[in-house]
């Protein structure tokens, strides 16, 4: 045991850096995400042979090749069942699933919601750049309505998904959001996601420098981020703005932006973030906030404890092994009605 602890505590970023050439476009948000991830892995305190990185198809899904762990680059949309099969088979493995808005919300939409519903202890990083990059610029399920792309030359006529709303609606127990140009924020969230027991979903607002450059600029750029980002911390009031003078209150059944000091509003009137609240009402409203009327919330929006699929399955198997008289296949073959000749 001492050896194991020793081995884990001395791991560094280099222990997880693969020898493969990283082939994302220069300036792509993925580079920063990879860098943060490589930094977080040693901090999680897991043996290096117990980490598995799984993906589907898309730019994001090349990720496993660039991490020196067990890795599986699957087929389009199917990262979730791939990861599920791995985790169910060996719950000791620490499974990360890397996916994108096309991979998990379009072709893999079905698997995505069922993964969340089953609450397997899998960490999902969904790179949301609101576009199909690898196929060169078609609209995705998160592309804003009206956006002109190669397959919507007159503007899209579809209502986009909000990732948080969808995930929480699918019974997700953990939802967080980060931006690709803030490595510290990403690392902090990845660490918390890695420690959450259950499916942890991180939506990373990621920039596609080629096909949808500055897609998240209103949230991430130097000029606008203070006014348009609200980083949530559990138990703290929801404050944002360059001067830290704005906040969120619940008025009636909806949220509202207020200015502290105006109309008698004080910090005490602001909503206090409760990521552990099981009732997802406020959390969904927060996840849906968007400029210009609201800031975008970042950080851990929801984190509730519930049983995981694989732990329940192992419990049932253990109890069946103890109580069921059929212990071997020979027992099974000879069970029930048999006769001798």
């Amino acid at each position: 045991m001492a050896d194991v602890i020793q081995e884990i505590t001395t791991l560094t970023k280099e222990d997880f850096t693969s020898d493969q050439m990283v082939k994302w476009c220069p300036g792509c948000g993925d580079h920063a995400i990879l860098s943060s991830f490589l930094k977080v892995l040693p901090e999680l305190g897991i043996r290096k042979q117990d980490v598995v990185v799984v993906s589907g198809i898309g730019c994001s899904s090349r990720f496993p090749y660039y991490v020196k762990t067990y890795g599986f680059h699957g087929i389009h949309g199917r990262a979730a069942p791939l990861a599920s099969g791995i985790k169910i088979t060996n719950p000791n493995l620490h499974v990360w699933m890397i996916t994108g808005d096309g991979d998990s919300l379009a072709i893999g939409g079905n698997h995505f919601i069922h993964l969340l519903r089953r609450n397997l202890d899998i960490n999902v990083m969904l790179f949301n750049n609101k576009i199909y990059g690898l196929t060169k610029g078609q609209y995705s399920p998160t592309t804003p309505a009206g956006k002109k792309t190669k397959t919507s030359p007159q503007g899209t006529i579809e209502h986009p998904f909000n990732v948080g709303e969808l995930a929480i609606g699918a019974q997700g127990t953990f939802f967080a959001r980060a931006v690709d140009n803030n490595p510290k924020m990403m690392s902090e969230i990845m660490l918390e996601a890695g420690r959450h027991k259950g499916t942890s979903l991180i939506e990373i607002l990621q920039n596609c420098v080629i096909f949808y450059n500055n897609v998240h600029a209103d949230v991430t750029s130097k000029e606008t981020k203070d006014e348009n980002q609200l980083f949530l911390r559990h138990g703290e009031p929801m404050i944002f703005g360059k001067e830290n003078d704005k906040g969120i209150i619940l008025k009636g059944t909806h949220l509202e932006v207020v200015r502290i000091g105006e109309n008698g509003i004080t910090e005490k009137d602001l909503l206090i973030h409760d990521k552990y609240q099981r009732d997802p009402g406020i959390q969904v409203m927060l996840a849906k906030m968007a400029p210009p009327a609201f800031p975008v919330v970042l950080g851990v929006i929801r984190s509730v404890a519930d049983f995981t699929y694989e732990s329940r399955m192992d419990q049932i198997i253990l109890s069946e092994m103890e109580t069921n008289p059929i212990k071997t296949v020979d027992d099974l073959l000879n069970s029930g009605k048999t006769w001798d000749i």
Partner: protein
Amino acid sequence: MMTTKRHKVVELENVVVRFAGDSGDGMQLTGTLFSEAAAVAGNDFATFPDYPAEIRAPQGTVSGVSGFQIHFGHKEIFTSGDLADVLVAMNPAPLKKNLMWVKKGGTIIVDTETFNDKSLEKAGYKNNPLTDGTLTEYNVIKAPISSLTKKSCEDLGLDIKMILKSRNMFALGIMFFVFNREFSSADEYFEKKFMANPLVIESNKRILRAGYNFADTIEALSSITYKVEPAKLSKGKYRNITGNIATAWGLLAASEKSGRKLFLGSYPITPATEILQELSIHKSLGAKVLQAEDEIAGIVSSIGASFAGAFAVTSTSGPGLSLKTEAIGLAVMTELPIVIVDVQRAGPSTGMPTKSEQSDLLQALFGRNGEAPVVVLAASSSSNCFYYAYEAGKIAMEHMTPVILLSDGYIANGSEVFKIPKMTDLPPIKPPIVEAEDLIYRPYLRNPEKLNRSWAIPGTLGLRHRIGGLEKENISGNVSHDPENHQLMCELRAEKVKRVANYIEPQTIFGPDSGDLLVVSWGGTYGVMIEAVKEMQDAGKKVSLAHFHYINPLPNNTEEIFGRFKRIIVPELNLGQFVLYLRMNFQKFRFYQYNKIQGLPFMVKELVDKFNEILEEK
């Protein structure tokens, strides 16, 4: 009671009995209890349930008829039988639907009290078939089953509707008399099933005996009864088993033998669902079952499980196999072991879900993008499913390849007597698992003989590697778009599957090694083929049977066998899929074909007629 018989007892070699009623009449149970009595008597037997796709189709109509056929004998039994010697029809609709399956001169037992205007109309009869001459060629036993059932229990104080639910036991009692069966196995069933309700045990026992006594008092029945002597089965322990249960158990056996825990990712689909249900029960054997959100998740979760070191399986039927297509390609590329069980049904599309067919063969062989060879096996009977599920697991794990196991609705739902094997008698399964910190390990380094790569399981120190659907560089497994490497890898994957032929049993022949006609068949038609070929051989014809379990690769001696016969015929329940494959592989032979695609099994007679026709052809 059993000793009061005054009649003549005729010995029979084999008999076919068909029970038919409404979906809610309990025909499957009646058939099962009759089968158990046949087992107690030491007969060999095979059964087949014939039920509608609807759970409870409109009562009294032809579409709601549920049937159960059993073929039992003193001789060895291979199929559930062609035409029935005895039909039990609980209502007019079952009679209408099943009359075509009764031998001319056969016995038909009906509950006359159900032949009223309303039910005749529902069944689509213009006149009453019991009186209009429809049945003149049959020996019809008109039994007032409903009223005698009621009467037998009138003093028990039970609800009349409840009593009438056991009408099927009256019919079973009649059949017990006719075939000189013991009550013991049925009584045991009542006692166990209705443990909480002694009155219901009593009523069922009474109704069963009322049917028996009724038969004893009716001259048409009591003058002659039949006896089928015990079959000459080899010494051992036996049980009755359906193909789907046998498949599930064969998979569990492969898991135990290999030391790899079983993982099943599957989605419910007729007629494969029982495999999913059965494996869900056996968690005490460590089996992990994920009822997936769809067919694709079923196989992809299995591929993940295989990567993580499980013996991974997915089970489905034709439409599901179509959905799994892309993922099978992923398993081909990643060279991970996985068994895909396809219980075939009549297609295309939704087709006829409860009817059987052999029409997924070409899909199994070729239905993928790119050059994606897989091993294809086909089970030949209900009990044989056990051995080929086991073999599929053995090949998948030892050769690191996906294996498609073809079963079909007929053998999957049908049952037969199964001699219980001992685990120690099954061949070993030795997956090529890599030890921790193996310095020689490379993800796509191959075994020089079999050409399989090795199984490096996550969690093992020193073997971290990445795989996926992109083309792999030989040995290193790195992503590669190199043209020559791609050709090499395509050839290696094909050769790996081809070399499985060096590790399987050679093809056997039933009958002489050479002759005038070789019948070539595969999969679930084995029973009827052997009966037809036996009949030909008994008539002095030089006919033999080569029934294939290994479809891809074919056994190494296949060509040599074909060369020893003057003519070859390939009968299949499709429009000619295996024959197309054989023509592709063995161009120097001429293959006759005989195809039936009605959702029904072959009949011995039609095969014999066809074989004779070919023998006589100039």
